[in-house]
């Protein structure tokens, strides 16, 4: 399964010294994200990615040590983002 961001590049984003506010016009909601939360959206906005690929890119970007719990944490974040309408599932070919 792949994930992609929903119109992320059109969302207003404000940087508050490493914390971010993102306004989502469709829901009228403002989301508060840390740097990794925002990076997930940026990666998925550039091209659809699987959970494994996403975790690999995040680990490289943030120079993280291997952690078996990391994919599970990211998967939960993806589910939350999907519920908020920030990302959607796509087929591999899309």
């Amino acid at each position: 399964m792949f994930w992609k961001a929903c119109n992320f590049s059109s969302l207003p984003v404000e940087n508050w010294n490493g914390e971010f506010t993102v306004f989502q016009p469709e829901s009228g909601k403002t989301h508060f994200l840390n740097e990794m939360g925002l990076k997930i959206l940026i990666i998925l906005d550039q091209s659809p990615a699987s959970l494994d690929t996403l975790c690999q890119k995040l680990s490289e970007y943030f120079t993280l040590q291997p952690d078996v719990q990391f994919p599970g944490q990211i998967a939960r974040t993806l589910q939350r983002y999907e519920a908020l309408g920030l990302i959607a599932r796509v087929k591999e070919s899309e």
Partner: protein
Amino acid sequence: MKVAQLSLNELRALLVGPGLRVKAGPFNLSIRTRLPSLIRQLHSLYSRYSLVEEDEIVEFHVQVIPRRSVRRPFARLIQFEVDGRFPFPPVPLEQALATLEWGVNLVIAARINHFLLFHSAAVERNGHVLLLPAWPGSGKTTLSAMLMYHGYRLFSDEFGLMEPQSGEFYPLPRLMPLKNQSIEVVRNRLPEAMLGPEIPGTLKGTVVHICPTQASIEQSDETARPRWIVFPKWSAGAAVRLEPLPQSEAFLLLATNAFNYEVLGKTAFNAVTNLVRGCECRKLVYSDFDEALAVLNALTDG
């Protein structure tokens, strides 16, 4: 023309008849009632307010009317009405003034969307607004009342009224409900203040209204830009602390305590962003007003 220039009989004729049309900051208000006790209270506590010119439109038409209860046939009850609707249940006659004031606040919070409405006190010093956002029970009404008598101009104890495009704040100096222990504090510290009657048994306990100063009401057309945002918290016995607050936290606190943030959508997002970026943000913990005044004066000097 001020309400003070009306005799009690003239005021009664307006309140019983077409309505008393008074200015409340950027809003015009029409009040009707035939309750003698409320008429007397308004004659005193509204004396500093200006009447609305005849050719001006009134935004809110409210009244306080007597009610009968089948279950409590001998109880003297009243109810607040706005445009034929009754947002609160009937309450004892003695609570008429408090119900009127809370009712007007409710109408402003529910209907006004051309301003971004923060749940916040606001005062002005040295030409700039000090915003004091806080949840109920944080002591912002008492703090506002005290600041009003110590060199600050009152904008409001309840609403930070921001024009979202320009970022300008609008004064809305209305009666302020002091509650419970704060009543004695203000009585002792501000003997010159104009206070209303003691109203026991409300949902918020005993309430006494304090009237804004003449200067605050007379300058209620003078808007100002914000420069400081301070989140106050009264805490018994606490030493005074005025600490920097991260802008991200200030954004979060402001956005979540605005009455109409989600209604205004992106406009509110941009307005809060610009507000926070343009202000110094602090949190204040205090138990002693003089100590709080000293640190707020230092912050707002120059």
